[in-house]
């Protein structure tokens, strides 16, 4: 083609133009809410957190508790849903005081200026293998920041969000930590699969040069370097003993309440299969404890096979066959929604009576995409540790989240990221309550975070103890696909989670050796 | 005694018989010719002799020894060198490097007491390409590239030299100088060198070769001196006959 070179030239020019008009979204995408004018008044009362009154009433939720809800609930001022306007409503006697105006705000730390707090959200978004994967986390943090700013900001400042794409790449993930070290106060909502090197994260120098690290309120922590980082507080509760060399026994907690309830209320004799995601050693070792926990509750597994992303649906036929041979009635997958989908589809293809099986999935099935598969997934159980997205009327925090994220059924990582944001927010507010808006330093955040022993995202989630890495949220809600929608099964009342120490099983074993053993 | 013999070679490619009981012998100290119409099997015979093709049946003998099972490299070690009908020069190397590769490969066995670059220059000089030594062969005209191939083959210090249409792409002057060079070579080397030559240029062949084999449809149809071959009826039929063009050739000499 004679004109091929012209075509190439044209394409190159178009690319340049597109690039120029596109541009990188590396800055804060949220429109900053109007900032209260910094006050000149000499008032020093920094109690931005007005109401120590019972949050529960405001939230309108009731968390069914068998364990002591921590005092922190009452102590900690969870004020994210309180706008300054609430001040007037809650306590009509006090004149409206804007404590932010009373203080000269300073830049007290990296990522903090007199009017902004910068947080960095890192997520695997731009990988060529799975483009757009965890975009939801960035959306979640942006939504959270917008929400906070609209309600008056945080520590008298506006929250700015910097995005970093880790692209399922270990080097890029380390870069994210480096960027955060230099320019952000904290990491919030991190959702990166390959955080393999956290040295920089943990030894980042603060404004005074102390190598204390960057506070990291991540959603997931998949590998020991991230799980055991002393500055990481993961909302997904990887519940892993630290330090850990990578091999050998490890103490892990697992949830069994859901299966126990099924055994108590539906069928006491559960026997079947548990699919283990075997792509990485870490996926194996994080799921195997659940297998043993269920067995300790009385479930019998005929087979615990490993599956990977490359397993074709027809290869699930082997599992169907095992189920037939052993008369199984329980099918649990520790992998993603695709695995359950393939499993059920194959069962249908092979004429297995789906109604005789209790199909169960982790939280990863709780997605609209799963429901779109239609009849084939009817009756599948799923479970989580926070209130389902449709219960906005039962929890204010959840309502705020759903409204801010802009969709009724967001991805789980958006919720996890938001939770990280709220945790960060609460900690900041606690610090401000004690030392004022100029008391914000990374050290203070780390100290405060390490003292959080019960945090429940304002009642939306089950409570978690962030002072240690080794615990899970002892609550669950059991859901089931009924008529094409997720319906809660237990607890029956909306807005409730089933919590209790008996839901948790702790065990110490060499989990890699347990697989295939 | 013949330095090189191909005895009753049969070469079959599926249903096609490329060589049908062909026998050829090449004596030392002389240039032997191999002629025939296109597609007669001349290059195929070369390929069998040098080992690039394994014959369906038949024997190849070098200096009395059976080399039919020997590999290409082994035959090269013994002293069988060739040029190709379809140019197989090293196009991305210079003329000098083309020859140098050959010298380096055979240095220890054939040129032990001489320096590589010296030998390479000498070989290039023999074919008259001394002044384009640094030119990339791929940019040279076909005729010169063929001469490079020739020099490369000579650099193997062969005992049997198989040349496949060396004059293709050369003008009259160049062709005759190649002919002279060949005659010089065999005269210098005496009983140590035999040359087998495939050619279409009849005057070249008749002028240089002592003996000529004629191949047609894979069979040797005539062997003899140039004069004998020229007057052979079978040869004339092969080159000029053919029913389909009878009318067109009606006026040609019979």
């Amino acid at each position, binding site marked *: 083609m004679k004109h091929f070179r012209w075509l190439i030239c044209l394409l190159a020019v178009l690319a340049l133009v597109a690039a120029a008009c596109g541009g990188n979204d590396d800055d804060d995408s949220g429109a900053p809410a109007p900032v209260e004018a910094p006050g000149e008044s000499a008032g020093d009362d920094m109690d931005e957190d007005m109401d120590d009154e019972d949050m529960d009433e405001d939230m309108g939720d009731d968390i069914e508790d068998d364990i002591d809800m921590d005092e922190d609930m009452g102590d900690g001022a969870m004020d994210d849903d309180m706008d300054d306007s609430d001040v007037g409503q809650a306590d009509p006697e006090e004149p409206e005081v804007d404590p932010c105006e009373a203080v000269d705000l300073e830049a007290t730390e990296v990522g903090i200026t007199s009017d902004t707090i910068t947080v960095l959200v890192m997520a695997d978004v731009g990988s060529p293998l799975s483009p757009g994967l965890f975009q939801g986390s960035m959306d979640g943090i942006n939504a959270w920041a917008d929400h906070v700013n609209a309600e008056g900001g945080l520590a008298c400042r506006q929250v700015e969000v910097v995005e970093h794409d880790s692209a399922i790449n270990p080097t890029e993930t380390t870069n994210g930590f480096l960027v955060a070290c230099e320019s952000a106060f904290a990491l919030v909502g991190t959702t990166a699969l390959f955080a393999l090197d956290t040295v920089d994260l943990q030894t980042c120098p603060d404004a005074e040069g102390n190598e204390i690290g960057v506070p990291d309120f991540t959603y997931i922590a998949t590998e020991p370097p991230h799980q055991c980082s002393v500055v990481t507080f993961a909302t997904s509760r990887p519940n892993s003993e630290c330090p850990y060399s990578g091999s050998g026994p490890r103490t892990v907690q697992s949830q069994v309440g859901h299966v126990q309830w099924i055994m108590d209320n539906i069928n006491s004799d559960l026997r079947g299969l548990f699919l283990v995601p075997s792509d990485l050693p870490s996926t194996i070792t994080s799921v195997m404890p659940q297998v043993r926990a269920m067995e300790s509750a009385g479930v019998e597994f005929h087979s615990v096979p490993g599956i990977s992303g490359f397993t074709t649906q027809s290869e699930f036929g082997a599992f169907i066959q095992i189920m037939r041979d052993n008369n199984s009635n329980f099918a649990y997958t520790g992998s993603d929604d695709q695995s359950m989908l393939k499993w059920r589809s194959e069962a249908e293809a092979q004429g297995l009576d789906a109604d005789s099986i209790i199909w169960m999935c982790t939280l990863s099935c709780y997605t609209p995409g799963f429901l779109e598969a239609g009849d084939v997934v009817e009756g599948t159980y799923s479970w989580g540790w926070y209130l389902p997205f449709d219960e906005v009327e039962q929890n204010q925090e959840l309502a705020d989240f759903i409204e801010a994220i802009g969709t009724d059924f967001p991805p789980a990582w958006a919720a996890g990221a938001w939770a990280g944001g709220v945790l960060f927010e609460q900690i900041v507010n606690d610090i401000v309550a004690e030392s004022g808006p100029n008391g914000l330093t990374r050290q203070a955040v780390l100290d405060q975070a390490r003292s959080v022993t019960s945090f429940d995202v304002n009642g939306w989630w089950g409570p978690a103890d962030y002072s240690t890495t080794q615990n899970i949220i002892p609550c669950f809600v059991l859901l089931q696909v009924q008529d094409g929608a997720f319906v809660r099964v237990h607890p029956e009342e909306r807005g409730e989670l089933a919590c209790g120490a008996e839901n948790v099983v702790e065990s110490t074993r060499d989990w890699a050796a347990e697989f295939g053993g | 005694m013949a330095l090189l013999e191909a005895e009753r070679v049969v070469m079959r490619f599926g249903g096609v018989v490329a060589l049908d009981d062909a026998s050829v012998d090449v004596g030392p100290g002389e240039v032997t010719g191999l002629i025939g119409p296109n597609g007669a099997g001349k290059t195929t015979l070369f390929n069998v002799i040098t080992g690039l093709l394994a014959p369906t049946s038949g024997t190849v003998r070098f200096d009395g020894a059976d080399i039919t099972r020997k590999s290409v490299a082994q035959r090269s070690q013994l002293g069988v060198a060739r040029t190709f009908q379809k140019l197989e020069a090293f196009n991305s190397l210079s003329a000098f490097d083309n020859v140098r590769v050959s010298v380096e490969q055979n240095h220890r066995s054939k040129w032990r007491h001489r320096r590589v670059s010296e030998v390479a220059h000498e070989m290039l000089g023999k074919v008259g390409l001394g002044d384009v030594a640094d030119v990339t062969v791929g940019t040279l005209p076909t005729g010169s590239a063929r001469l490079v191939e020739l020099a490369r083959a000579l650099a193997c210090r062969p005992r049997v030299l198989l040349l496949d249409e060396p004059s293709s792409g050369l003008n009259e002057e160049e062709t005759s100088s190649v002919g002279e060079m060949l005659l010089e070579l065999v005269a210098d080397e005496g009983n140590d060198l035999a040359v087998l030559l495939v050619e279409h240029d009849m005057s070249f062949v008749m002028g240089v070769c002592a003996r000529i084999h004629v191949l047609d449809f894979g069979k040797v149809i005539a062997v003899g001196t140039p004069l004998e071959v020229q007057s052979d009826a079978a040869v004339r039929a092969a080159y000029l006959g053919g029913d*389909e063009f009878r009318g067109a050739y009606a006026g040609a000499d019979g």
Partner: protein
Amino acid sequence: MILGLRLPVALAALAAAVAAVVIAVFNWKGAPVTGQTFLVTTYIGLFLGALWAMYATGLVVVYTTTGVFNFAQGAIGVFAAFLYWELHVNRGWHSVLALVVVVGMFAPTLGVLLDIVIMRRLRTASLVVQLMVTVAIMVLLLSVVGDIWEADTARRVPYLFGIENGIDLGPSQLPWHRLIVFLVAVAIAVAMRYLLRRTRIGTAMRAVVDNRELAALNGARPNVVSSTSWALGSMLGALGGILIAPELGLDPATLNNVVIIAFAAAAFGALRNLPMAVVGAMLIGLLRAHTGAWLDFGPDYRFAHLAIAPLLLLFVVIALPQARLEVGRLAHNLRRHERFTKWWEGLIGCGVIILVAVALSGGWLDFGVWDPGAWGSRELNSANEAMALALIGLSLVPLIGWAGQINFAPLAFAGFGAFVYLKLAGDTGNGYWIPLVGLLCAPLGALVALPAARLRGLYLALMTMAFAQAMSLIFFPHSWVLPTIGVGRQFPHIEMFGVTFDDRRGFFLLIVSVFAVFVFGLVLLRRSRYGRRWMAVNDSQAASATLGIPVVWTKVVVYALSAAMAGIAGVFWATVSGNVDSVQGFDLLIGFNIVLLVAAAGVSIPVAGIFLIFIPLFTGLGHRLEDTGNVDFLVTLLDITTTYGPGMLVLGMVFNPRGAIFEMGRGFSPMLPWRGDARAEIAAENAQKREPEIGELGIERPFTPEEVVALDRRLGILDDVVPKEGYGAARS
């Protein structure tokens, strides 16, 4: 001969069978062996086999009718599957309509476009170029798919024929969809065979590949025929993609990996034999299904069942008959005087490389309009990773650039080097072990090359791919090879000359120095007799052999060298982050991009060296750009360049098969659209060597075979009776 196989092959097959039985016994799962299970497993295996047979059919058809081994066959299927999803699921078109549009309209159009724009120009190009271009197309298609359909939602393609109902097989059932697909796949294979062997158009398609001139004389129009071939191959790929997507889920990487299985199946049929390719596909399917049903390999070998296809490919490569020495091809765009870098120039070059790297990273260079400043941790981190990749890329230069051999497994060799280093140096990070690592990696390269070096370059390329895949699936996930990731570093910081390179800047300078040393070494090598010999073998294997050069051994040595360099590079690659994920870290896909880049960079050492090191420097500068400059659009351009760059560059090879960058040696002028005069100059140079095709002579009347023979006898217009692939040797 036993069963039609030569003795050594029969022995190897026997050994493989025995090994298989032993493996099976040791890994028996203990599941009850019932007729029911066996039946179900078998039908699943046949069904999977049918899916792969569809891809293999497409591959074989394209290869026999165009002479090009189409790496992008799977990617075409991926694109078609996504497009089908878009039309049928997302927009609600009827499934049949969507199918017709995608397979009947989009696919052939794509195929014809590919042929006209790209493939036609590759006819006389070397194998390296052909393969690289199809790999580039694959990468580009996948990138486009990823950009159009983002991964944030899971997508499913529904079963074409429904899956709820089927034939009863005892308590189990065989769904209609699977039965129909199986029959369709077999029918297509049969139809293609019939088409190729028994119809005029099929014969014409094959003839055009075997002997284009003869075909033209016989009245075929080669250009039309090859476009038809590509259209057909594209349609087969599209259909395969749509049918396999319900099984695997709609994910580009997963769907594309199927091609490796298709390659193995096609290789089973020696790339030309369609029935055997189908048999191969079925064999793989059955093996996979049955190993899944009866065997359990344990956690260390948990991906072993996926390795069946690459292992089969390896076996096929070993079993195939002896090599044919390839005929030479005309090299393009040669300069009249090739100038090779002198040794002292190489030395200076090294110094310059080191100096520039130091200056840029230290922030000493000020461009006037923009002062980048010193590189911080982030720039150095990214640059280090890119440098390690560049080092791995450098290992490919002697292989691809000089010897014209293809290697898709540089990451596998690098990973092996990292593993050897770990075993040798342990916790100490003693850098003096590194040269030994190189030495120990060389045999691995030789081992990989040995079976396939006897064969055509294409098999060699496939074999390296199979090797890389097998390493990723069997070797690297093994817990003995790479320790599981803990809080510490798997790979300790390197210590050498009394220095511990635990800071990024120092490490950067170390890698750059190693790179410079490698470049210098390659310059020396190029000027040596080995460099000449490799280029000679590259130019003409047949001629090299007749000079006494051991062709196979020469190829093996280059592979050994490449493996040694890659192994050393692997040590640095692993040390950059300290922890390497066993599954993803040495993945085949990363290798593709590097290979593309090196192929595009071309054969010249200085050019390749500069090009390869340009990338890390560019990366580092790019990050500085983000931080200090207000040039967002340049950053986006950087993103686009990194994603699409390698692919586009290689496509540029269509015009200059010696390397797109090489063309810059001629100055930019020929590349500019308005410099037709520069191109005319080049064309004139080439015209001297290139003869017009008979098909281009404008001869109207088709000649009968007898006329052709008669003409040839007198005029010598056809090639001699030698198979196109080259000379089959007695022994090589």
